[in-house]
């Protein structure tokens, strides 16, 4: 049987290629994402092993606040520790280090680097030091409060030369410096695409953070002690009251690499989830191709059976073929995936997520995974068709044409309906209070039920969707409509990948639409001003608090207020506090205060949300203990309760709370209300000038601001769409393969049509519309499922504050148009092949 199987494969190379195509694509995405993740990891690992190459010890505070989403805020240490460390025997040199948000403003007034999603923008200390992270490549290190050094990459992109004036924005505001030097970071011009502005220690403390405080101390030993001994010696020299720890260079390197690794692993998981979705979609295509090819070889298999091959042998021959296809496909897929990982970098770049480039890493696990998974998926997908091939009666050899068995069993209908009913039941159960894990089960039931019912609904749906084709395209439309309905199993298997892709896209779009409309509603309710200044910096840095103060005193402005965020510890847990300026917030930004007044909000008091007050049974006058990032403990009295907690969250404090600490905070938005009678136009240009002075933040009208907030979800959406695009490509290839096989199967019919007067154009039209109808079946059913899925997800997120569900009408329409275009594109090659049918051969072979 091996020989027959192998001969069968080699005898039809075209079929081998077609069948392998689905395997190749599926595995290419798998290996592509694995290679991409590994390469990315390696790049960052290399980067950070360079950074601390000459650092022998590293001193920092042990006090850390861990907030949600893996954010941490480590307490700063007093600068006097530098002298303590310097005195430790074995220490050759030390450098105090400050690392904080700082943005270099380009000569065009725009900040360097991509805002928001790009690599971070730092301000730090640059000085001569044995273990220095920075080395001067031109000029000298900064000395004094008016000098700055830039990293090489930033100097190049900003076209700065020595003695240029450079504007830098940091927490304390914006300031102009003189460029005195250009520095490189180890061997690279800039670490991982981040931008750096380097100052002398005093300036860095005062401009970037708070005077008297630094982030950490880098130590270089004199070689008399091992790194471990040196770290221990330093640790002993620093009094316990400072709460510091000393790490060796190797330890800090490993810790940094691990942190990046964790951050990247989330990304890697995201990628692999989508590549497995793509592979799952691909398995449908593989299954479809094997089914069709089994049907088309029915006579051949029947002949084998007639001359004495057993059922098992026929099945085995097909399975052997699937093994060959699986191995061939996944090997090609592996190689294609390596190329694809480069394309992925480009995709991310397009989504404005810049990543450092490095050498390609192809881990052995990726190779083994790809081949093994590709092989398993292929053979598993071929299993049913192979068994069916074995069951062909020997008599079928005498039959005229190979017709796939199309009768639909009642069992299938019942089974599908039962699955859907179970799905519906679990979702209803959840709405009545059952555990939310049931939602996932329900969705799974719904999907499998729909796929099971596919062949049953394919025919009526195809006939329905084909109606317009028939109406507008006459008899070619009629034939396209009938062709898409003539083999419901095949049609549903071809449409299934489209369905899955579309359902996921629709669900994501529905979720995004719901979030957007909710954000829109919340901001419309709470933002009472006319203009806002927005920043896309999230989590790291933001707008300098002095910006709001400057605008507040402008003659056109009635009030301008800044809203910021602070990370603190409450009950030993990291929490966010919203910081406001009680003097200016009223009438501009409404948090729905129901008791207390803004005047009551001081450095000693706090406002809490009504929800918090209810949950914790607290009332006005109770106290909350808050630990700031510099370990100061504040006991705050509750002085007010508010209802609008969507933006403000559980706690709101005055920005005066941190006035006397080393903690710094940024504003995430500045909200502006104009004086009555001030014309929008003149006010806008004045405001713009004020914003330009800071070179940071974007001035937006109320509407623009709300739109930008509700549209902020779109970046994420774009990334998810990009990843789902992989599945769409496989779905398109699935349509192409099926159409090609169908065209091959219908050669005689096409020949007859050509003989009685069908033009090549009409042949193409017929194939094209069949393709469009098939694609639309997947899209329409997929949209219905996707909207349902979206609703379920929104429902599941109800407790996270998502209260309203919106159907994404715009996206739905785009998906339908896309499905149409996909249908047209997928048909191009098969339609061309159809016109190449040998007319004479088609009508004369009996």
């Amino acid at each position, binding site marked *: 049987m091996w020989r027959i199987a192998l001969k069968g494969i080699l005898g039809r190379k075209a079929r081998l290629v077609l069948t392998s195509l689905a395997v190749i694509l599926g595995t290419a995405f798998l290996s592509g994402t694995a290679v991409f993740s590994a390469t990315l990891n390696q790049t960052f690992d290399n980067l950070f092993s360079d950074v601390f190459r000459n650092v022998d010890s590293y001193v920092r505070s042990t006090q850390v606040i861990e907030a949600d989403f893996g954010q941490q805020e480590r307490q700063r240490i007093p600068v006097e520790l530098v002298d303590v460390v310097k005195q430790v025997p074995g220490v050759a040199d030390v450098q105090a280090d400050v690392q904080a948000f700082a943005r270099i403003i380009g000569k065009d007034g725009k900040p360097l680097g991509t805002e928001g999603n790009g690599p971070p923008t730092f301000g730090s200390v640059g000085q001569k030091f044995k273990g220095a992270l920075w080395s001067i490549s031109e000029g000298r290190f900064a000395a004094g409060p008016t000098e700055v050094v830039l990293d090489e990459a930033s100097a190049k992109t900003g076209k700065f030369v020595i003695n240029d004036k450079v504007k830098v924005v940091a927490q304390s505001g914006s300031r102009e410096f003189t460029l005195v030097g250009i520095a490189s970071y180890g061997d690279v011009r800039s670490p991982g695409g981040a931008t750096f502005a380097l100052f002398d220690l005093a300036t860095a403390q005062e401009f970037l953070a708070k005077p008297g405080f630094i982030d950490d101390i880098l130590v270089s030993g004199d070689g008399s002690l091992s790194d471990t001994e040196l770290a221990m010696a330093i640790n002993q020299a620093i009094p316990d009251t400072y709460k510091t720890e000393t790490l060796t260079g190797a330890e800090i390197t490993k810790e940094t690499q691990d942190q990046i690794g964790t951050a990247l692993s989330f990304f890697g998981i995201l990628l692999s989830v989508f590549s497995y979705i793509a592979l799952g979609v691909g398995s449908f295509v593989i299954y479809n191709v094997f089914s069709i090819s089994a049907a088309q070889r029915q006579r051949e298999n029947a002949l084998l059976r007639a001359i004495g091959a057993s059922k098992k042998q026929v099945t085995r021959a097909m399975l052997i073929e699937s093994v060959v296809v699986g191995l061939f496909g996944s090997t090609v897929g592996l190689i294609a995936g390596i190329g694809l990982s480069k394309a992925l970098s480009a995709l991310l770049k397009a989504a404005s997520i810049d990543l450092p480039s490095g050498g390609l890493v192809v881990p052995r696990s990726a190779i083994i995974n790809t081949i093994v998974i590709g092989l398993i998926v292929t053979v598993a997908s071929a299993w049913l068709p192979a068994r069916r091939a074995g069951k062909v009666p020997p008599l079928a050899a005498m039959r005229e044409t190979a017709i796939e068995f199309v009768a639909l069993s009642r069992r299938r209908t019942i089974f599908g309906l039962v699955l859907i009913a179970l799905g519906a039941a679990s979702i209803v159960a959840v709405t009545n209070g059952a555990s939310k894990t049931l939602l996932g089960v329900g969705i799974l039931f719904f999907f499998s039920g729909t796929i099971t019912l596919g062949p049953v609904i394919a025919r009526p749906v195809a006939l329905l969707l084909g109606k317009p084709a028939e109406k507008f395209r006459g008899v070619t439309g009629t*034939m396209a409509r009938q062709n898409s309905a003539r083999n419901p199993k095949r049609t549903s298997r071809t449409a299934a990948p489209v369905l899955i892709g579309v359902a996921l896209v629709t669900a994501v779009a529905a979720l995004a639409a719901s979030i957007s409309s909710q954000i829109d509603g919340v901001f419309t309710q709470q933002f009472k001003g006319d203009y806002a200044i927005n920043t896309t910096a999230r989590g790291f840095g933001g707008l300098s608090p002095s910006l709001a103060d400057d605008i507040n005193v402008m003659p056109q402005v009635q009030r301008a207020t800044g809203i910021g965020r602070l990370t603190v510890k409450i009950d030993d847990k990291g929490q966010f506090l919203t910081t406001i300026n009680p003097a200016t917030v009223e009438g501009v930004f409404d948090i729905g205060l129901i008791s207390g007044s803004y005047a009551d909000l001081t450095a000693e008091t706090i406002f809490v949300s009504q929800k918090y007050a209810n949950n914790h049974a607290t009332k006005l006058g109770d106290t909350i203990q808050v630990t700031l990032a510099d370990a100061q403990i504040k006991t705050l009295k509750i002085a007010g309760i508010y209802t609008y907690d969507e933006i403000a969250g559980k706690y709101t404090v005055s920005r005066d709370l941190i006035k006397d600490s080393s903690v710094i905070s940024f504003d995430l938005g500045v909200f502006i209300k104009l004086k009555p009678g001030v014309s929008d136009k003149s006010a806008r240009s004045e405001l713009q000038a004020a914003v330009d002075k800071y070179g940071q933040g974007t001035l937006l009208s109320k509407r623009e601001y709300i739109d930008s907030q509700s549209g902020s979800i779109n970046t994420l959406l774009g990334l998810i769409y990009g990843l789902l695009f992989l599945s769409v490509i496989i779905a398109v290839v699935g349509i192409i393969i099926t159409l090609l096989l169908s065209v091959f199967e219908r050669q005689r019919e096409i020949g007859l049509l050509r003989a009685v007067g069908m*033009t090549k154009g009409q042949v193409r*039209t017929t194939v094209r519309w069949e393709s469009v109808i098939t694609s639309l079946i997947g899209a329409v059913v997929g949209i219905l499922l996707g909207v349902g899925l979206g609703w379920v997800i929104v429902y599941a997120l109800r407790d996270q504050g998502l209260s309203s569900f919106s159907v994404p009408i715009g996206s739905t329409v785009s998906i339908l148009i896309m499905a149409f275009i996909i249908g047209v594109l997928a048909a191009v090659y098969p339609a061309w092949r159809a016109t190449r049918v040998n007319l*004479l051969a088609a009508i004369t072979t009996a």
Partner: protein
Amino acid sequence: MNNPSVTFPPPIANSDSAAARATNVSKIYGHDDSEVRALDNVSVEFEKGKFTAIMGPSGSGKSTLMHCMAGLDEMTNGSVTIDGIDVASLKDKDLTKLRRDKIGFVFQAFNLVPTLTADENIRLPLLLGNNKGNEEWIQKVINTVHLQDRLSHRPSELSGGQQQRVAVARALASEPAIIFADEPTGNLDSTTGNEILSFMRKAVDELGQTIVMVTHDPVSASYADRIVFLKDGKIAGELLEPTPELVLDYMKQLGH
């Protein structure tokens, strides 16, 4: 592609009594030593309003002659006119339209499009040309082949004889200049085959159509007005007003 008005070169002579004419047609396969002459300098005319049969042993070139005349196959030399139009000069698109508008076809098997109803199959050439056709004529054709109550059926729901009747009706529906039938009864039992042949006879006698039929069966051939015999790619003779006995005698003479 939906242009119903096709402009063909003007007919050479409107008063031409031939619906189709082959002049010195040769069809040669292969080159030099391995050369096979499927048709060797064949000249023949098919008169309007007549039923002509082409007979000959297998390999005599009878199907090839039909394919060349119907624009389904390219000839090596010579010329063919259909209703005065020079077939060799037409490009694929116009050739397709010629087959659609001027020629009717009945094949031995696989004549119908399985996804279309009998009615749609009958009107197929008209529908492809976006042409309504002559409804009165179509009804007449349908009545002639007794398909009135089978029109909404699909081919898989029709018997072999009914399928061939649909094929005959399709060939007639567009009132073509000529109908080519290639062993139209080859797959049918004799009773059903005779029924089909009677219909074709009726189409010529009552509806004034022109039919050329390729067959190897003397009984089938005897339905024709005239038989053209082919042997080794050449015209071997003719017989007018044939009967099965005459045909058999003639074939014996030809050494068949």
